Every structure is written in C-alpha cells, then in structure tokens.
C-alpha cells in the first residue's frame, strides 16, 4: 500500500498554510489608512482623503467604474466588467489593502497619509 501523503507533501502543505496565515494576520493588523489612491486605465493616479464621504466615477476601457468613499473605507459600487470581482472584494480600509478590477483596469489602493490628497481634482470634476 502506498502512503496517502508523503512527509514532503505534509511539510509543503504545513509550510504554505503557515506562511500565508502569518502573512494574512500581519496584513489584517495594518493600521487604518488615511488616503485612497485611484488609478484607472491610462489616467494619472489620484488621491483622496478617506475621511470625507464621496462618490467617484472613473473611466476605464469598458466604461465607468463607481467608487464610494465612506466611513473611512473605499469600495467599488458599480463596474462594467463581467465577473464583478472588484465589487465583491468589499470595502478596503487598512493601509495596503487594494481593490482591483482587471478588465476595466482600475486599481484602488489604501495608503497611509502620502502627502496631500488631490482635493482639487475632485472639486473640478
């Protein structure tokens, strides 16, 4: 009879599970972010404060993605992409958390206070 798992299998699985759980815990303990960086398509990256509620509409190759900022978190509310992975990723509030929509090329990233937020862009829109 062949063994179900070799020692190498068990070692590999334990190592990978341990490392990913440790990394996930480390990420989950990151401090709450202060600003959110938004990139869409070939647009220039823009930053907004997380403390002011607002709705952003950004344009990617497929159409407009709607991003809501409220309660110190950002989330993708509506997206023209097929699988809506970005919408289902939920809200991001901790430094380093990222929402990505691959088809519409939108990246929303939470940052610690990285300089001034681009408040004027938002007002001019």
């Amino acid at each position, binding site marked *: 009879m062949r063994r179900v798992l070799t020692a190498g299998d068990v070692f*590999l699985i334990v190592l990978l599970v341990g490392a990913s759980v440790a990394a996930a815990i480390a990420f989950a303990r990151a401090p709450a972010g202060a600003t959110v960086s938004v990139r869409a398509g070939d647009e220039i990256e823009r930053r907004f404060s997380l403390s002011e509620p607002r709705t952003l509409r950004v344009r990617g190759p497929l159409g407009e993605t709607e991003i809501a900022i409220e309660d110190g978190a950002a989330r993708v509310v509506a997206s023209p992409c097929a699988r809506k*992975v970005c919408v289902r990723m939920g809200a991001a509030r901790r430094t380093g958390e990222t929402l990505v929509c691959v088809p519409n090329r939108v990246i929303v*990233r939470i940052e610690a206070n990285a300089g001034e937020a681009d408040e004027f862009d938002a007002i001019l829109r």
Partner: protein
Amino acid sequence: MRFSAERRDHPRARIRRLVTLSLLTAASLVLFLFEALIPAPLPWVRLGLANVMTLTVLYLYGPGDAFLLTLLRVVLGSFLVGAFLAPAFFLSLGGGLLAVSAMSAARALAPRRLSIVGVSVLGAVAHNAGQLLVLSVFFLRGADAVRLLPYLTLSATLLGAFIGFVARALVDRLAARAAAAASVDADNTESS
C-alpha cells in the same frame, strides 16, 4: 511510482495514447468551462478542476504532453469564452505555464519526496503566482500583488491538495487500463 506500462513502439499503443490525450484535453476544456459557470465563493478563488487533467497527463505521458495540453486548454478555452488576447487570456496563460513548469520540475526533481498531491499543491500555488506575475507586469504594482498573495496561497494549497487526490484516483485507473491494454497488444504481437 512509474507508469511505463504502455509500449510506445507498438502502433496500437501510439493510437491509444493519441486518443487518451485528445479525450483528456477535451475533458480539461469542459471542466474549464464548467468552472467558469460556477460563481466563486470568494473573488479570485478557483477550484482548478482542469488541473486534474494536466496532472494526469504529466504522470501518464510526461512534461511535454502536459505543456501541450495546458497550451491547448488556454487557447481553445479563450476561444470558447470569447477572451482570446483579452487580459483574462494572459492571466490564464501565465498561470497555466508557470503551474505546469512547477509541477514538471517538482516531479522530476523530487519524485520520492512529493506525491501527486504535493505536486498538485505546488502547481496550484504556482498558478496564482503566475497570474499575479502577469498582473504586475501589465498594470499592478509589485506591492499590490504581494498584498493579494497570502489569501490566494492559502486557498490554492487546500484546493490543490483536493485536486491532487482526485488526479491520483484518475491516474491509478488509467494506468491500470493502459497496463491491461499493453499486455493484450503484446499477446497479439506474439501470436501473429
């Protein structure tokens, strides 16, 4: 564990191999399409059913055929879902090629240490890593890709182990059949 039961020189064995490979390629396409239909419980998490076929071909016929099967699945699969040369195509190409490379290497370098289950786990993790690699080349910054890695690695490890058990069952059955068929071929050759 070696499955060299089939005699490559016998013409009937060659035809049998061709038919088996074609059937496994078709099966991997069907599984790929089926999986695209089930809504994933979490974004980015896929069961990886098609990898059962890649693993089976790797263990029955070796790395060359496993690479071929992966390429065919990625290209034909993208035709069928209408994503040829779309971002999703490059993600699945990058993931598929890195996965089959990792599995081939693992099987060749550590045949005693890792069973098909461990090889499958490596393949699943490599698949995610390949996708993130393509993502970060295309438009994601490296730091963002790393941020997604732990969750993907965790789910890939567990699902990869499951897929490995399924593949082992299939490889055992197909190897037993191939051995039986080869002995029939040998008998026929001797009597004729």
